[in-house]
């Protein structure tokens, strides 16, 4: 049985689905501090699909996230659910990256560190930007096939994969050559919960950024370097890559590598000029229906 090499790309996002008034600042920008950071929901389905492939066909599941140091939390989450290895791509040089610059960085990471990948999994889209662009753009940059809106994997063999994908008015069964990049929808599966054993093992996992904070918890170690060695020995040190580690050309990442720029951001203001209040009485309703009929609403 071939051992499939799988990479899952995940993102830590502000929980925009449960946004409240307090999450918006007076100037109309988003108060990220007021929003809990979560595992992008559809990325969990991408991870689940990869884990199921591992169980059914064999292979390894590597999870990569690009983001600020705090994104290590989603990587730990991925470990609790059963990912084999996780890596963080983090560098100030990536700040301001649009989807094109992001996909370039992800491509660099995959090409440099996992040149023989068979399947790359992504969530269909992230709930902060809702663009659904990074998946297809990463596939193009890797020069591999892509299938978006994937609901299930029907069959997998050494050189090709058969999947079912959603289209606007139905579904298709498609065959794609490997390597391939799949974007996965939230109807594909039910993400598995944490495994207690994994939680116990990985909850103290840390990356370079977290070492200083962790030091006080380990009186035995005085230096971050020593703690790093210790964590690595236990298999709970999360490796981090910067732009140089993945050979990313500075001109193609961050603001420099992003063709799009934000001109203006406005918060949604309610433009209503006041509504006509209809009393909930028989008489009120009667007049209201009459008014709608008069206006030729139907």
């Amino acid at each position, binding site marked *: 049985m071939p051992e499939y090499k799988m990479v899952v790309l995940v993102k830590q996002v*502000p929980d*925009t*689905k449960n*946004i409240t008034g307090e*999450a*918006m600042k007076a100037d109309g920008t*988003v108060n990220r501090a007021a929003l809990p950071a979560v595992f992008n929901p559809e990325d969990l389905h991408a991870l689940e699909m990869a884990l199921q492939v591992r169980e059914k066909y064999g292979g390894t599941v590597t999870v990569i996230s690009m983001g600020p140091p705090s994104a290590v939390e989603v990587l730990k989450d991925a470990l609790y659910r059963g990912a084999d290895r996780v890596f963080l791509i983090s560098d100030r040089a990536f700040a301001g990256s*649009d*989807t*094109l610059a992001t*996909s370039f960085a992800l491509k660099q990471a995959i090409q440099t560190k996992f040149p023989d990948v068979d399947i790359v999994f992504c969530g269909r889209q992230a709930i*902060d*930007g*809702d*663009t*659904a*662009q*990074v*998946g*297809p*753009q990463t596939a*193009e*940059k890797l*020069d591999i*096939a*892509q*299938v*978006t809106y994937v609901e299930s994997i029907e069959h997998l063999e050494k050189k090709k994969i058969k999947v079912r994908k*959603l*289209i*606007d*008015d*139905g*579904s*298709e*069964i*498609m*065959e*794609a*050559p490997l390597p391939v990049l799949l974007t996965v929808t939230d109807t594909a599966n039910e993400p598995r919960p944490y495994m207690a054993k994994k939680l116990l093992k990985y909850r103290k996992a840390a990356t370079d950024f977290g070492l200083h904070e962790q030091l006080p918890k380990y009186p035995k170690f005085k230096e971050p370097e020593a703690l790093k060695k210790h964590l690595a020995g236990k298999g709970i040190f999360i490796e981090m890559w910067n732009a140089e580690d993945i050979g990313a050309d500075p001109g193609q990442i961050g603001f420099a590598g992003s*063709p*799009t*720029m934000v*001109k*203006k951001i*406005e*918060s*949604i203001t*309610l433009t*209503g000029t006041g*509504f*006509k*209040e*209809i009393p*909930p009485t028989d008489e009120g*309703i009667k007049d*209201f*229906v009459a008014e709608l009929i008069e206006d030729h*609403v*139907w």
Partner: protein
Amino acid sequence: MAGHGEVWVYAEEDWDELKEIGIELLSKGRELADGLNVQLCSILIGSKVKKHADILFEHGADKVYVCDKPSLEHYDTVKYAKVIEDLVEKYKPNIVLYGASTQGRDLAPRIASKLRVGLTADCTDLQIGDYKHTDGNQYKNILYQIRPAFGGNIIATIVSPKHRPQMATVREGVMPTPPRQDGRKGEVVIFDPALQNLQNVTQILKREKTEKRVNLKGAQIIVSGGYGVGSRDGFNIVRELAAVLGAEVGASRAAVDAGFIEKDHQVGQTGTTVRPKLYIACGISGSVQHRAGMDQSAKIVAINNDPNAPILSIAHYGIIGDLLEVIPKIIEDIKKRRVD
């Protein structure tokens, strides 16, 4: 300068029919092309698709680029992207727009990555204006790509001043269908790029079309229920009002998530965008996500027991009361009029 820096819209075709979105895009496309004084062109790709060009002319296209080959019968990301990439290289358009459909959102990013140009997803408005870059440079007549972000809580204007073409996908249902001008003609440009030896091509083994049970997009009247409806059974009264009005049944995300009704009824940011003549929101508080999908409705009626529900701020009529009491009164009144 007509003929240079054209505005292009991708006319998606499937099941031997043009998709509505490709027609919708012609209304905004026309406005942009007129503002820039350039031609508005459609791109038509597939097998036996040339016949659709006339419909595009009648809805405002000046020119249609047609790539008609048997091997293009079914959509394939790499093949279709190659056609558009080659077209762009040859004719150098200023703007290319796609529908934010499953196909458009699969295709446009692949092309943007290859051409290394900007792409803005799921726009709800597009305008032309000037842009002053932070580096001090001024850019004239730039495409403003306007879209909601952060779950619909903010509206962002995105520009891509230094790269051509400027590309965007546009949300379905937000641009009006342009009026049909019978007999309007235009120029057909046949394009026949080499598509042999392409790598990474996929194959469709089977296609299944699910008949849509809910037609929110085409509905003149929509009666929608929210979390305030309370239960799956509670939706019966919403359905009953819809039946009396000959309306379609809609729902908010909260109602769908609570399991009161199926997802294909969902109106809003993650559901369907609608613009009916009459929208009756029953027990819907009106999150930004919901409002983004229905605030273009001609008349909005909100029935809610909370006088502070955000939905009221965009409503034309508000009925503050228990929907289980209010809705039967409306049904009864309408029925009575029919008898009279």
